[in-house]
């Protein structure tokens, strides 16, 4: 029997020249999603912006790149057109964000919503130059990207609420599929100890909140001898010398590669992303090992956290982060309870459930399109 075909349009899995990115989070997700599609009876194919190369993500799963010379306000109309031309006859076209679904979508189509779309989120500092009218145009395109595809799959309740509070008529289009934990390498023995470890595993970039984490490290480690801060994320070469100098003058603050067992022993896992989608798969994996998320009140991580029960919801500014960490450090029994409940919560987000949810949505999309 011929397999159904699904094509997925993303911004970036590989670098524009086809090289593997330093941060492999998106590639890991793409591999998991390809496997999910495969199990649902689809062969997957990926498309992204780049210098016109083709690579293999997994055996039999290719990634094509197309150069887009017409990017505009976070949209890539040239890439969108190429995708439509090449994959328009496929069973399903899946767009990784609403602006990729602008201006046209394939017959059977799904758009993913993994963040609240904002000009700054898509355009970075260039968004500062947008006039009011241009901002309105940005949101008009977002609306088209949400309204035109057959279904919208949101990975966070915030994203659904944002959309239906902005455009009331869209609520019926949404399916909610929260992420599932990324696989974690097994850890030998139990890690942890008497010290409370605060772990920052995201790339050491401002948009992930590294500056606030560093400021909190200064405050907390100076006040409490029973705490330590560990940074395990990738850092761009330009900041490494500064980071080394900063570390050299601190006690109990470390930067090292990630290691199995990092999330064991109930560490506080700092998820402080200011803009951009949160790294939910990683966060859930951490919870599954007993890691206690300390997360911003914005984004899908808030779906997993019941503040004070299995994690902490904190405004990601050092002035609020440091006291929150100290409160946990001061109450070991609460810390154990948070860690225990985090583990139980993560078990509700199994990969199997994620794939079942997706299988249901894929079938719904296929039926809707008549594919």
């Amino acid at each position, binding site marked *: 029997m011929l397999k159904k075909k699904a094509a997925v349009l993303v911004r970036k899995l590989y670098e524009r020249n086809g090289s593997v990115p330093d941060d492999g989070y998106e590639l890991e997700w793409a591999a998991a999603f390809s496997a999910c599609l495969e199990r649902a009876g689809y062969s997957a194919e990926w498309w992204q912006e780049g210098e016109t190369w083709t690579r293999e993500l997994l055996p039999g799963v290719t990634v094509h790149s197309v150069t887009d010379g017409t990017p505009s306000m976070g949209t890539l109309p040239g890439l969108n057109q190429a995708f439509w031309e090449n994959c328009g006859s496929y069973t399903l076209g899946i767009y990784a964000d609403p602006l990729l679904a602008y201006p046209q979508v394939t017959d059977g189509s799904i758009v993913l919503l993994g963040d609240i779309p904002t000009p700054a989120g898509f355009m970075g500092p260039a968004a500062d130059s947008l006039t009011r009218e241009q901002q309105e145009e940005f949101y008009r395109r977002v609306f088209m990207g949400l309204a035109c595809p057959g279904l919208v799959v949101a990975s966070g*309740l915030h994203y659904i*609420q944002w959309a239906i509070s902005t455009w*009331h008529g869209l609520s019926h289009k949404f399916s*909610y599929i929260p992420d599932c934990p990324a696989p974690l390498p097994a850890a030998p023995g139990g890690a942890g100890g008497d010290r409370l470890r605060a772990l920052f595993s995201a790339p050491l970039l401002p948009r992930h909140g590294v500056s606030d984490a560093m400021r909190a490290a200064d405050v907390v480690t100076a006040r409490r001898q029973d705490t330590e801060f560990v940074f395990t994320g990738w850092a761009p070469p330009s900041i490494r010398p500064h980071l080394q100098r900063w570390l050299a003058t601190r006690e109990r603050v470390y930067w090292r590669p990630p290691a199995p067992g990092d999330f064991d022993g109930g560490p506080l896992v700092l998820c402080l992303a200011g803009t951009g989608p949160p790294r939910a798969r990683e966060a859930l994996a951490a919870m599954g090992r007993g890691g206690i998320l300390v997360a911003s009140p914005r*984004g899908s991580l808030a779906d997993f956290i019941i503040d*004070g029960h299995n994690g902490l919801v904190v405004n990601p500014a050092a002035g609020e982060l440091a006291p929150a960490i100290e409160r946990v450090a001061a109450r070991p029994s609460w810390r154990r309870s948070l860690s225990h409940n985090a583990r139980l919560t993560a078990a509700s987000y199994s990969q199997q459930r994620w794939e079942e949810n997706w299988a249901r949505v894929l079938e719904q999309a296929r039926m809707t399109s008549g594919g």
Partner: protein
Amino acid sequence: MPRAAIVTTSHFHASGQHGVYGGAERYGVELTRWLRAIGWKVVWWQIGTGWTASFLDGVLVYSVPVRSSFVQTCADLNRAFHEQAGAVDLAIYFVTYLAYPQVFERSISISHGIYWDYPFWENRIGGGELRTEWLRRMEAALSGPRKVVSVDTVTIAWATARWPHLAGRFVYIPNFVDVTRFHPAHRGRQESRNLRVLFPRRLTSVRGIAESMHAAEVITSRFPHVEFHFVGRSHAPDHERHMLAWAARHARIFYYWRPPSNMPMVYRNMDICLIPSKSTEGTSLSCLEAMASGLAVVAGRVGGLGDLITHEYNGLLVYPSAGRLVEAIERLVVEEDLRLRLGERARASAMAFALSRWRRRWGDLVDTVMA
């Protein structure tokens, strides 16, 4: 004695004849009680015909005639409050838009949740420039006070996506439950009586009354050991008469209401609770009370309910259509282990919303604002 002035729209009915009994008003009573307990003199202002009333043994409420509420703001009330409240140490704008156009220097406003996500709102506010003007006033109202308390995280996500400069303004303080008054009935598996499903809300569209009535008819026809209890008042006597007549036509469907002091007992005698809100929802007090009472909760995936319920961990979150509601209730009726597990975890997670914790957070906030 420091003096706090609180302005709201309707703690009492506009006639001054009787109090309004909703979640926000209960919040107001608890806030007033706590402020007085820590030594504050509290005075309220609201919309009315010029009467003065009191509650909680001597807390005065002054009413102010309001001529208009252009684009859902009450500039008249705001101005009168500023004229009449005089030298206050702390002003609390009990509804966010009441902090427009002016605010006292030391001030806090409270967001009880997103209220602009119901379909009628679109028409009520008017389109085009009126909507733009509403947004302008909302931004001004959120920018003025020193801090904005949000009872849920979705409001923070919505507002800060649109206005990133407000990120530091928000303080997440979810609603509360008295876990000593609301507690489980200390019983095991039910063998001797019918399984009871509770709808403990006002009989309004946004609370999902129509979908719940449909679900009650379907479920009671399928399962002879299940009964439904609708416990709540309507805004209109006609609706209550209709509900009474409808319930009388169905075996095992009951409609009545109870005074607040009896609600803990009502919850204790139930097994499943429906909070199928479709819009205008914060961190529902009813949901928290059901959780604290150890019920398995089925909630709509809107507003702040996602801050209380983590899907499949301590309750079920559904798109609040009649069909989805029936599916979820049926699951809980059939799967006793799931029902009991969700109820136990609901109780455990409700402890994170204990009244004592809410008071401590408010204490920290008032200290910050007064510093």
